[in-house]
């Protein structure tokens, strides 16, 4: 299947149009939920760090330092990907599943369209492009959420900002983007596979959608561990 996904398009303009549509669905369509989750995760994490550091001798600016790295390395890519597995993955699986059961894929096949390339390719490419963007936004908003939360805990904002700039390693951003790309590939291919090969009606589409989310989530967590092991 993966080989056919990247087969030479029959008509570039059609594939381009479909890729743009998918980018809009995946990127713009997920922006709100990714942003809300990132803001609150950042805020909650900051509050909890502040609580844990309250009685210790660790300087308060460490909150910004710890939060920045945990958001960039782990929370932004992994939590966003898990959330996107739920939203984008189930959407892809049910879209392709309903196209299969309503014979839309057969109609394309009979026309002579390479359906794997035309239907799956743009979704994979759009995911590979949009996941890193969403994860980067999530990281920024998570850190901002942490800042907003620390204001209410009595920690001077200057301490938080000092922590953010303390011992910054650009490699962590690379790690975040690598994770985002790998997770995008997992979510899009697993979901497309589940949707494309649906056999049956509404019940099977629902099951395929569930399988897409569950399998993607498990694979994301395994890949997360492997990337951490290999790159850190």
């Amino acid at each position, binding site marked *: 299947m993966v080989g056919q996904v990247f087969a030479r398009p029959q008509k570039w303009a059609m594939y381009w149009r479909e890729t743009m549509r998918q980018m809009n669905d995946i990127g713009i369509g997920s922006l709100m939920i990714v942003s809300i989750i990132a803001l609150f995760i950042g805020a909650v994490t900051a509050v909890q760090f502040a609580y844990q550091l309250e009685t210790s001798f660790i300087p308060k600016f460490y909150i910004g330092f710890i939060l920045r790295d945990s958001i960039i390395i782990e929370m932004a890519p992994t939590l966003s990907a898990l959330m996107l597995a739920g939203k984008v993955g189930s959407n892809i699986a049910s879209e392709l599943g309903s196209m299969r059961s309503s014979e839309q894929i057969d109609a394309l096949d*009979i026309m002579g369209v390479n359906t794997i390339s035309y239907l799956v390719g743009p979704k994979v490419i759009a995911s590979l492009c949009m996941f890193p963007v969403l994860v980067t936004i999530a990281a920024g908003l998570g850190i901002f959420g942490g800042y907003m939360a620390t204001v209410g805990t009595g920690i001077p904002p200057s301490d938080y900002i000092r922590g953010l700039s303390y011992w910054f390693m650009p490699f962590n951003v690379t790690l975040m983007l690598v994770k985002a790309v790998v997770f995008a590939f997992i979510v899009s291919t697993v979901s497309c596979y589940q949707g494309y090969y649906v056999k049956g009606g509404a019940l099977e589409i629902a099951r395929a959608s569930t399988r897409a989310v569950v399998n993607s989530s498990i694979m994301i967590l395994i890949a997360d561990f492997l990337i951490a092991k290999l790159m850190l």
Partner: protein
Amino acid sequence: MIRIEDIRKSFGEVEVLKGITTTFNPGQTSLIIGSSGSGKTVMVKCMVGLFEVTSGRVMYGDDNFSTMSKNERKVIRQQIGMLFQGSALFDSMTTEENIRFPLDMFTNLTAGEKMHRVNFCLERVGLTGSNAKYPSEISGGMMKRVGIARSIVLEPKYLFCDEPNSGLDPKTSITIDQLITEITRENNITTIINTHDMNSVMEMGDQVTFLNKGIKEWEGSKEEILHSDNEFLNEFIFASKFLQELRDA
């Protein structure tokens, strides 16, 4: 012309098509009839390549479709139009975009030329002005018409229709039947219709092939079908009491 020669199709241990041979001619509406599970849909899907035949040949003119490579099949497929039972329109596209899709994908026509062709097809199926409607906004009969318009937009040589009347009221069914017949005659298309609707058989059956449990049981025209002495065919045609009484009268 399409000719199938001794085609067989099995799913695991179950043989669904048991050696069917027949010819479908251009300019004629050829109907495949039979009760549910007789192998009609499998036969059509084998002919268009959605299923691979277990043995036998599907010939499009002089070309053996069964042994063609994927790329060779693409050339034939662009000469095929297909109307699906559920119309199979693309949900995310308007009527106009649905009909224009094959033109966008396979031709290099200008936007104006495509528009002209789409409007011609819409007019041909009696849906002028419905360009901007989505499939969810139109009736079942209109969806079938859009399906027909999409299947003829590339001026196909072969048209397959899978139960074109299913889910339609009798009047709309007749309209769809007449439309398919007219388009077949006008463009000299080889049209193959898979149905179990006897009204359609009597309306447009230039050639009727009756399948029973995967075997070609009978073949003839709509004029001959009512006078056949084939036991299985008679059981199928005169299943209703009304038709039995009509025959006996």
